[in-house]
């Protein structure tokens, strides 16, 4: 079975989405030029989710990737709800009041977010009322708590993450009279999701990360070359600090059973996540909820299964680590991606491939022989390699698509091999997951001119 290049392209491009920040009066005053995003499923259906939105009541743009496990319900819920929690956490007291008054008196609500969605990125209509009520409870508490201080982005992000995870847990415990919704909230709580979210406001870039997705900054050095700066830490067994943290939070007696085969309790790869109440609730709570829950839940072996060595829950948290970075003119782009990308590509290669893509082929340094000793054969090899690189760039109008093409199709020389690409994309559903994971990528491009101007003001 062989896919032609157009067939390969149609698969790769099926989920691509691009957004350009609109220009006002001929000028884009945002530090973000726009973003490209794309997803390539390996699971059927895909368990990754992505979100992007502009905050309308505060400044800034939110972008996030969410890697679900044990189903996609949790990732779906987080992708719909998290940005509202963040936006609300960032709102000043007066705006919160205004919104609450509007709801109270049935007036039109101030819009909080402008979403930038691919047609395939859906929102659950059935749950919107339930979700809204939880969110409203959250802002009412924020209004009551009125600290009077200006909102710190770091804190807002942490609060939003924790609050949403808490709501997910609570909704599952309380249940819902509507049986569809009741099943939904349980599926959300029993599945899990990582989250890697960036908030960009002017030169302030915050990345809040929970789990093993990753944010990476692409930096162009003075000589034109590209380097990668991590803006998140993976929460998994490879991260010593994470292993330390988990061990600190539990008695020494559990030390051996906490992390087995690089997994939390020998089961879970990410060490932090939304949902996954099986790693958060007490055994009793789990049993009660499952037993009183719908039959589908009872029939599910996974939900009934209690992790081994489960003594001192919770073992898992949704609390993010937040990294703040002041953008500089040399910071050209940010890549947010689920581990499906990072498993196959080194961040340095990601930086180079996206950097070369965004700056365009014409920026490829022309070759000049000058006084060097170059043979025809050497030159030929060099040109062939450059051509391969260029031709793969030309096929894509989307940096995320371009990255996926490399992630899936790269041969040992780091160039896209069509045959390999074709093979990987034509794998039957049941085999695909064995060769690759879901990949979700957002590439945010920064506006160096605006960032430079910010810098000069300061």
């Amino acid at each position, binding site marked *: 079975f062989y896919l032609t290049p157009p067939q390969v392209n149609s698969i790769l491009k099926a989920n691509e989405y691009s957004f350009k920040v609109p220009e006002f009066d001929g000028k884009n005053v945002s530090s973000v030029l726009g973003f490209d995003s794309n997803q390539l499923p390996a699971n059927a259906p895909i368990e990754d989710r992505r979100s992007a939105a502009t905050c309308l009541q505060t400044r800034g743009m939110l972008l996030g990737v969410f890697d679900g496990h044990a189903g996609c319900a949790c990732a779906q819920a987080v992708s719909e709800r998290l940005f509202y929690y963040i936006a609300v956490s960032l709102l000043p007291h007066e705006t919160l009041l205004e919104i609450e008054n509007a709801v109270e008196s049935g007036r039109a609500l101030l819009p909080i977010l402008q979403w930038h969605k691919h047609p395939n990125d859906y929102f659950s209509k059935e749950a919107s009322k339930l979700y809204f009520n939880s969110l409203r409870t959250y802002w009412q508490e924020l209004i009551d708590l009125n600290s009077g201080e200006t909102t710190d982005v770091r804190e807002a992000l942490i609060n939003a993450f924790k609050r949403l995870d808490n709501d997910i847990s609570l909704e599952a415990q309380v249940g819902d009279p509507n049986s569809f919704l009741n099943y939904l909230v349980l599926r959300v709580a029993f599945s899990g999701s990582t989250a890697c979210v960036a908030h960009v406001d002017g030169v302030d870039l915050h990345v809040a990360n929970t789990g093993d997705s990753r944010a990476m900054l692409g930096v162009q050095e003075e000589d034109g070359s590209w380097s990668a700066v991590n803006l998140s830490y993976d929460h998994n067994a490879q991260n010593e600090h994470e292993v330390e943290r988990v061990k600190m939070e539990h008695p020494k007696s559990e030390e051996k059973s906490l992390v087995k085969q690089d997994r939390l309790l020998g089961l879970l790869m990410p060490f932090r996540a939304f949902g996954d109440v099986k790693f958060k609730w007490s055994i009793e709570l789990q049993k009660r909820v499952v037993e009183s829950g719908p039959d589908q839940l009872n029939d599910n072996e996974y939900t009934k299964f209690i992790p081994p060595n489960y003594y001192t829950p919770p073992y898992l948290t949704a609390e993010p680590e937040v990294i703040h970075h002041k953008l500089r003119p040399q910071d050209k782009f940010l890549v947010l991606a689920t581990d499906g990308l990072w498993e196959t590509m080194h961040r340095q290669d990601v930086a180079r491939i996206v950097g070369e893509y965004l700056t365009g082929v014409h920026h*490829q340094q*022309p*070759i*000049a*022989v000058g006084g060097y*000793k*170059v*043979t*025809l*054969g050497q*030159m*030929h090899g*060099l*040109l*062939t390699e*450059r*051509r391969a690189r*260029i031709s793969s760039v030309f096929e894509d109008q989307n940096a995320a698509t371009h990255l996926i093409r490399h992630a899936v199709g790269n041969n040992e020389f780091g160039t896209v091999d069509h045959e390999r690409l074709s093979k990987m994309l034509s794998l039957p559903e049941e085999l695909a997951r064995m060769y690759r994971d879901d990949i979700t990528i957002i590439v945010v491009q920064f506006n160096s001119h605006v960032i430079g101007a910010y810098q000069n003001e300061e």
Partner: protein
Amino acid sequence: AAGMFLRLLSDIQWRAAHPKWRRMTGSQRSTSTTAEPHPLSLPAQAQVVICGGGIMGTSVAYHLSKMGFKDIVLLEQGRLAAGTTRFCAGIVSTARPVSIELKMAHYSNKLYQQLEQETGVQTGYMKTGSISLAQTQDRLISLKRIASSLNVMGIPCEIISPKKVSQLHPLINIHDLVGAMYVPEDALVSSANVSLALATAASRNGVQIHERTSVSHVTIQKGQVTGVETDRGRIQCEYFVNCAGQWAYELGHSGEEPVHIPVHACEHFYLLTHPLQEPLSSSLPTIVDPDGRIYIRNWQGGILSGGFEKNPKPLFTEGRNQLEIQNLQEDWDHFGPLLSALLRRMPGLEALQIMQLVNCPESFTPDMRCIMGESPTARGYFVLAGMNSAGISYGGGAGKYLAEWIVNGYPSENVWPLDLKRFGTLQSSRTFLRHRVMEVMPLMYDLKVPRWDFQTGRQLRTSPLYDRLDAQGARWMEKHGFERVKYFVPPGSDLLDLDHSKTFYKPDWFDIVGAEVKCCKEAVCVIDMSSFTKFEISSTGDQALENLQYLFSNDLDVPVGHVVHTGMLNEKGGYENDCSIARLSKRSFFMISPTDQQVHCWTWLKNRLPDDSNLVLEDVTWKYTALNLIGPRAVDVLSELSYAPMTAEHFPSLFCKEMSVGYANGIRVMSITHTGEPGFVLYIPIEYALHVYNEVMNMGQKYGIRNAGYYALRSLRIEKFFAFWGQDLDAFTTPMECGREFQVKLDKGMEFLGQEVLLEQKQNGVYKRFTMFILEDHDTDMDLWPWWGEPIFRNGRYVGKTTSSAYSYTLERHVCLGFVHHFDEQTGEELVVTTDFINQGEYEIDIAGQRFQAKAKLYPFSSLFAQRRRKDDVELSGYQRE
């Protein structure tokens, strides 16, 4: 090497009086251009001013001065031979598909060979020979066709096996070759030095050469060159020659009255290497690998290799001028595919060290042929430019022809294919040129099969019926910017790739055109022929008739409503044009001539008609749509549409009448079809075109009418032995030589152009004779098809070439038209060709090296003419054009 050339040139001091190259150190180098300590001041006047000191300018100066012109000034904005000429790869190659270009290259080769001896300037001339490789059978066929024409010109040339190739050139990988063409006398030169040698000789003959002198514009008064303005003053002159290479376009446009010279530059890359470990011999043949798009020559022990890539880089579209070609950027990525081709051809060169990638712009023309001749708008303004990267091969010959043109009023060979007047203003659009040259440059090495068409710069001039015809399956070709139908693909035909399946054998439109021809013979077809050039000449008195009687060889003093076929002859009796002229009234005439005559014929008439406000010449080409109704039922269709009797008694052949067709009035109907078939051409004012076409098609339905194209027309005219101007007829062919004495009225009671020569020929006979050949043992399905330019052999001896050919669906044979000469067996001297000479020979036509028996005929088959005609019914004996 560019650096090397540059150094070489800057070390040379131009010394007019003592043309010996003296090395001088930098500090002593003066900017003066002559031996005198101070720059020689420009003369106030000269007979000829040549602009451009490259190979073209110096060659024109050389030849003009040899032909006795003394008062010549050559101006060069930078230094001699510092433009494209300096960077030129220096390959002199005679293997050219166009006959006139082949002749120019052959002459250049002979000239350069003796130039060093003549001038004492080292030209680096080395007879290396050249080998053109074929990777495919089709390529080999095209090489064999060229080999045939080289051989009959006496230029040694042979088709060789791949094995022989490796014997001639040890580095070549031959495993993908099917054969090659070897031209042992092709040569290499240093092009800059050839140019300097020509300048030296010219200078000795009195030509004044001024470097660092820019022409700002040429002054023209009353359509005549009066002088040039330069940055060092004005020179009055009678003739100006624009040899400005890639700046020719801009220079042409610099004056108040623009002279349109359609050339456009593209970047051209070639590679220079260090010597091989065992340096390559300087006598190693040059390799041309057109399928790999590259050429390779030996160069200072290493190689020089360039090519014509698929994706050329046009430049200077916006006309950015510069003094001398600065070293443009090397672009290795762009050169990559050519480098791959080079290493595939010579894998042993992998370890060879690169010296430089040279970027040298070359100028290209819209039809891949160079441009020479006199401007149609400014007398005395001559042009020689647009060499399509073959400047060094053409330089000698082109300079000679242009010099002859200036001195004698016409060159010694037919140069119409290169004449500036084949273009009009329409080819002078910057966008058009940019797009077209991007197609032309790769075409240099593309396989050129019969009937290829340009794909860019199309749909410029169209008939109002274009969309209607296109929707009915029309396939188009272009002539002088005008879209014309080749044939109509029937609905439901699955020949989707019709335009792409090009072949030297039977083409896939064979049956389609056959059906159109059959319909012309049995029912009626309509062909849109709007592209024809149409002039009206009228006067208040008898001036129109009097002048036309002098300019045309037939008698135009015919009753109103008659159509006359006549040649427009030059002083030597040759056809400058071939037209049909209808007498609309006593004092006005309507003249139809070939599409590409629009500029040439206009200029010819304008230059010869008296300056009389009562005599008006008007180009009405754009005003009329022409529909040709061909076939026995045309008469029925037309009479039903006009309620007028159209039978021969009421509307005889060669008759013209304005009448109504459908609702439309004022349609000029002429009883000619240009094919020898019965029918009419309708000249329709354009706003009625759609109406008349619809009416004709509706009414024609019951008579079996269908659309047809030029391929059907062509088959019909060739089987009836109708000659076509520009293909069969040219300025070197007289009516006597093509059996058209009946179109000449030697006794019309007044003198006309060419009369003397015709009288002389009538008395003493002609030296060539237009002949029709029917191929006898040619298998239409299996054998290569004739095209044109195939050598004709009589009793085994070469006697001439074909000029056109077509398959006759009626005769079920191929018909070739061509000229037979009579060369003396001993001396080669041309003898009179008699009817007996033609009739008493056994003929063969050589198609790509294979000879086919042919039957020669001097008169067409009368059985092919549907109607019996009156004795003086002239259309029978051959008037035609396309």
